[in-house]
């Protein structure tokens, strides 16, 4: 196999892909082939946990593309993640069919509970996998496109943009909390049974979802890596570091920003769609501004503008979160808060930057 030049020089990226490939082999083997009582056995819970980390990593990559390369600090990327999740969640809801508590063949339980008699128009089509899969990309992409079109055209940038992205996700959270929206209100969408006929709780399905997450992360990484090594990637850096220069060189900065922002939102949506069947629920809490900011800190910890750093940061921080919220729940927010401060003050280039500098001086 011939490795294209843009990837050949990306040693960290190759290492990441190798690790993902190894995980894709080892994790299913340890789950399926090793006896349950053996110390090396990986439980289905752990497989799903790892799958979740990979989804977060993909979200982090999408954040890094816009923040690290284009200089847009989005405090609303979790909104795109959640939208993707809701789109796939709607498919999973429709798959429940008559197996719900109320046994209605069409309406999800929460609609029956609200005395709705008809499926709202925006739920139509979500019984088809292909349609849901399309919407997973289209809904976040379209929202980001429209939002970006308005914001970038009027040259909202920097902190202002960050704050309105936060307002966006905040408004969406409030909206999705409303029962009238038709997305299950407070409780969101849950009690999923199966996808494409495969029961979600089965170990084999979980393994497949894990593999799909690894594949999506690898694909998302490669797409972003390729993008930033093209001329467009250099335009992004130019926009980040000297937007007027890019404009006076003849680039339509707002169009570049809008397209890349929308592309990044689609990746985030894909991550959300893979996340939902693994955790089994999607609710408006996923729109909480804190989630978006957490994604930003993953990127900052790993090192912005490196893509690999985003993956490393997402996995490390989330591993720490899983461990701390289990062992010392009181400490988690202190640790996360401290991480924000420490990374911005002491580690502006993140872990990857630190390693690279070590490598350079050695």
């Amino acid at each position, binding site marked *: 196999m011939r490795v*294209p*030049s*843009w990837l050949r020089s990306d040693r960290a990226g190759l290492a990441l892909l190798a690790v993902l490939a190894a995980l894709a082999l080892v994790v299913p083997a340890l789950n399926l082939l090793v006896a349950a009582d053996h110390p090396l056995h990986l439980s289905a819970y752990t497989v799903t946990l790892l799958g979740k980390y990979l989804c977060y990593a993909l979200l982090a990559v999408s954040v890094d593309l816009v923040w690290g390369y284009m200089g847009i600090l989005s405090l609303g990327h979790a909104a795109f993640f959640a939208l993707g999740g809701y789109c796939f969640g709607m498919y999973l809801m429709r798959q429940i069919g008559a197996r719900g508590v109320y046994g209605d063949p069409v309406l999800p339980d929460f609609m029956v509970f609200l005395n709705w008699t008809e499926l709202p128009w925006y739920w139509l089509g979500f019984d088809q996998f292909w349609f849901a899969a399309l919407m997973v990309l289209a809904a976040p992409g379209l929202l980001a496109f429209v939002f970006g079109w308005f914001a970038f055209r009027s040259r909202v940038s920097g902190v202002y943009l960050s704050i309105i992205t936060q307002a966006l996700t905040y408004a969406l959270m409030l909206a999705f909390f409303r029962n009238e929206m038709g997305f299950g209100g407070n409780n969101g969408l849950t009690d999923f049974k199966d996808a494409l006929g495969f029961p979600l709780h089965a170990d084999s399905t979980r393994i497949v979802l894990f593999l799909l997450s690894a594949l999506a992360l690898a694909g998302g990484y490669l797409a972003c890596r*390729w*993008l930033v*090594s*093209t*001329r*467009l990637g*250099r*335009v992004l*850096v*130019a926009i980040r*570091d*000297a937007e*007027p*220069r890019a*404009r*006076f*060189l*003849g*680039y*339509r*900065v707002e*169009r*570049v920003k*809008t*397209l890349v922002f929308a592309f990044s939102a689609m990746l985030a949506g894909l991550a959300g769609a893979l996340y939902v069947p693994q955790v089994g629920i999607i609710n408006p809490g996923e729109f909480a501004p804190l989630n978006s900011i957490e994604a930003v800190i993953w990127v900052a910890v790993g090192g912005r503008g490196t893509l690999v750093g985003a993956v490393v940061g997402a996995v490390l921080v989330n591993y720490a979160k899983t461990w701390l919220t289990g062992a010392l729940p009181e400490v988690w927010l202190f640790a996360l808060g401290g991480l924000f401060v420490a990374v911005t003050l002491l580690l502006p280039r993140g872990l990857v930057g630190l390693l690279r500098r070590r490598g350079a001086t050695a």
Partner: protein
Amino acid sequence: MSELISELDAGGMHAPVEPVDASHGILLYLEGVSVTFDGFKAIDNLSLYVADGELRCVIGPNGAGKTTMMDIITGKTKPDAGRVFFGQTIDLLQLDEPAIARIGIGRKFQKPTVIEPLTVLENLELAMSGAKRLRGLLTTRLAGAERDRIAAVLERVGLTAQAGRLAGILAHGQKQWLEIGMLLMQEPRLLLVDEPVAGMTPAEMERTAELLKSLAGEHSVVVVEHDMGFVRSIADKVTVLHQGRVLAEGALEDLQADPRVIEVYLGDGHAAG
């Protein structure tokens, strides 16, 4: 949306790049231009004509409106009144910054603005004209002809040896030249150069003067500069701006004898230079 994807860089509403019509020998027209910031007239009924292939210096005390004039030509600021034409046919007031850049007006900022994390070569590649459609942007390779064009510009601005270095680690003067090189990659008809020699050593200044002189003829060049010595070394024709309007215009020697110019510059160290 498809239009958007295919034309990341296209001009105004529907701007196919039309050739500049400089058939009357004049490339840039500013006529009766005024702009006001909060009641302060930054530009006041300014008229200025730049001939095709001319090298023009614009001088004037601080606040005379030099940078604002450049902002107007390049579409950053819209004037309250007046006409700005590029050649006979192109109304610059109808276009925005990228469109103006595309039709052949390059601008160098006062503070050297190069993309520091990219190499010198990548900076030039970024500025290269004709490669700004999305299809052209989604590539990681350089075609042979493109390579040649970049090599030629590198040669011209004297940065061939630095081609692979990051722009961020260049010396101050080298950054200025790189930025001029980026303008050249745009193949502009008109170059607007804001204070090119600020902070340069005398040797660097000399090289810059030669570079700019070599550009004239092929391009029109408008240089805004404070340093009178530098202006004397390059310009045939000098325009003095004062309080947003043209105070005087002509050869530098004549201007330095002009009592109005002397009064404006009285006590200003630059005049002596």
